[in-house]
């Protein structure tokens, strides 16, 4: 019990001292990344961005440590344990890409109670004590239909490829797509499969449903599934419809090849994996004593017909089109909020 009291006392003390130390340097502060999943190209790019940016920040003496931890299989229970371990390891801030918006709240609250700054991004947490850097996933879904409205004025049948069932990102994007479809009134979703944001899964799922589908005008996606869908259409010997892409390098490359060969037109939208670096700097700014609003919204990254070549050239093989944030970018972002 004594240790708890001591801990609370020291937390209270450090909190009361905080205003005195405004702009105190954060060079001895430690930030940890709690990541729930690493099994696709987006997550790998996200971790890469974090590592590159974190190592630079440590080398520059801006921060004491920027360690990344990933759980094996997108499991809430493991991530909760991981956050609890971080509390014990004495990190000053925890940046989270969460497996579930609600189910980690118990662990997040424990972290907050221990005086730790919690910043969530992409997969956000709803605990009121945490900061959230959210993506408007519903708007991302709707933007696909907006594009189709322009491109296919006559409307037509759509095939929807969804993400991982039960994950809120999947629900949000899909809800956005369905709202868009309802509003436009020209389109009809004739089939829906789960591609789990992975090309191989998407290819199998699309191949399975294709024989039962009428002519498809366009495929709406969630990212990481466009290339697989294209392969499935090709294998079935059906004309490849307009497939919305998700910024993955293989998708952009395929699009470029089609564009050069037959003038194929589409668009690509997803969030930049470099959002992890934004979360990093937001945590650093909070540690630095800055006041930051609890809810922030980050824009999504879109690739169009005209800037395809430029964006593709900047994307590494097997990676995802990316934007990384520096401290200056992050400060600018926060000033605009």
């Amino acid at each position, binding site marked *: *019990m004594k*240790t*708890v009291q001591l*801990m609370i006392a020291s937390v209270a003390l450090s909190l009361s001292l905080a205003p005195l130390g405004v702009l105190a340097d954060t060079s001895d502060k430690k930030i940890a990344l709690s*990541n729930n999943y*690493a099994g696709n190209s987006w997550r790998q790019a996200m*971790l890469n961005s974090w590592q590159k940016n974190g190592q630079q920040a440590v080398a520059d003496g801006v921060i004491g440590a920027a*360690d*990344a*931890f*990933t759980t*094996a*299989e*997108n*499991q*809430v*229970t*493991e991530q*909760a*344990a*991981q956050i*609890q*371990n*971080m*509390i*014990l*390891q*004495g990190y000053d801030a925890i940046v989270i890409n969460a*497996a*579930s*918006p*609600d*189910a*980690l*709240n*118990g*662990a997040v*609250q*424990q972290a907050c109670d221990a005086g730790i700054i919690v910043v969530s991004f992409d997969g956000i947490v709803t605990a009121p004590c945490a900061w959230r850097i959210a993506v408007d996933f519903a708007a991302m879904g709707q933007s696909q239909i907006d594009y189709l409205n322009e491109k296919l004025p006559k409307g037509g049948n759509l095939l929807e490829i969804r993400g991982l*069932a*039960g*994950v*809120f990102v999947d*629900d949000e994007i899909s809800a956005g797509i369905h709202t868009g479809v309802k509003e436009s009134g020209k389109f009809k979703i004739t089939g829906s499969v789960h591609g789990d944001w992975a090309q191989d899964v998407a290819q199998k799922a699309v191949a399975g449903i294709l024989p039962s589908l009428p002519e498809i005008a366009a495929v709406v996606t969630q990212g990481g599934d466009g290339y697989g869908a294209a392969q499935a259409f090709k294998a079935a010997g059906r004309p490849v419809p307009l497939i919305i892409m998700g910024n993955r390098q293989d998708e952009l490359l395929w699009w470029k090849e089609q564009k050069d060969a037959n003038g194929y037109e589409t668009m690509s939208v997803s969030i930049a994996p470099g959002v992890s670096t934004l979360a990093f700097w937001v945590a650093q700014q909070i540690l630095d004593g800055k006041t930051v609003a609890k809810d922030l919204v980050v824009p999504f990254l879109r690739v169009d017909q005209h800037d395809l070549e430029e964006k593709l050239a900047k994307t590494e093989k097997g990676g995802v089109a990316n934007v990384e944030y520096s401290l200056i970018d992050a400060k600018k972002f926060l000033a605009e909020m």
Partner: protein
Amino acid sequence: MTLSPRMFRSLLPAMSLSVILIAIFYLQPRTMSYFGLNLLLNLALPIAFATLAQMCIITVNDLDLGIGGFVGVVACIGATLLNDSPLLGVLALLGCIASYAALGALIHLRQLPSIVVTLGMSFFWLGLALMILPRPGGSAPQWLHAIMTFKTPYIPFTIIALSVVALLVHWMLKVSAYGTILRGAGGNPSSVERAGWSLLKTKVTMYALAGCFGVLAGLTLVGLTTSGDANIALRYTLLTIAGVILGGGEFVGGRISPIGAVLGAVTLTLTGSFLAFLHISPDWQIGAQGGILILVLALRAIINRAETR
């Protein structure tokens, strides 16, 4: 005093736990406190319950590949029905236990392989959980959260709960008379049947017991996380099997150890923390966890060989 292989074998779970615990204390002295132990161990309680559920099934020489999904369903019921209309929630949970008992009866009567039935059920459970809670959310009843965050004096609640449960189940299966029959039904079914005991009854009892522990696992889990998610416990399936085996159980039926299973579950929980404290890169953590498992099981195999010699 020389240790016989048999004794060494039953001590192995406790020894692997001690090694991991001492290593953690050494790496991160902060954990050596009430606060630290509480944080380190509180997620072990649901895993321990789920492991006991798996152990019940392994006792009768079956394997449950659906327990993770089942715990998820219970967690979803706990975060929705149980909170909004407690009576309906309790009924639903009783229904879950009953369906587990029915599963046992089905497997026995139709002589179906349990792996196939429970694997099929795992998809059913996941679908059911998604129907109850299509997207993560809901909230655990206040009382449940209060129990799980209850601060007992001197020793963390989790440790007390784990010990009580382990001893209780140990008494139930290893000491009581009917417990012997239940284990016998897994180890040597034909002789138990010839002695006049109903195999159907033993199987239904063990499956119902597994259902009870599954419900306890789901409820303690949702009490800790404060809200539900259909995917919350999918990993429990393999974790519980590993826990039972780590704790000295075997796939032959009848050879189980409830105390060992609880220790095994705690050891597995701590392995994750241990690797995190070691600062092992995320890419290696998953592999390292498997490595530790193989190490302990290899040790077991060596002891087993010494035993048969």
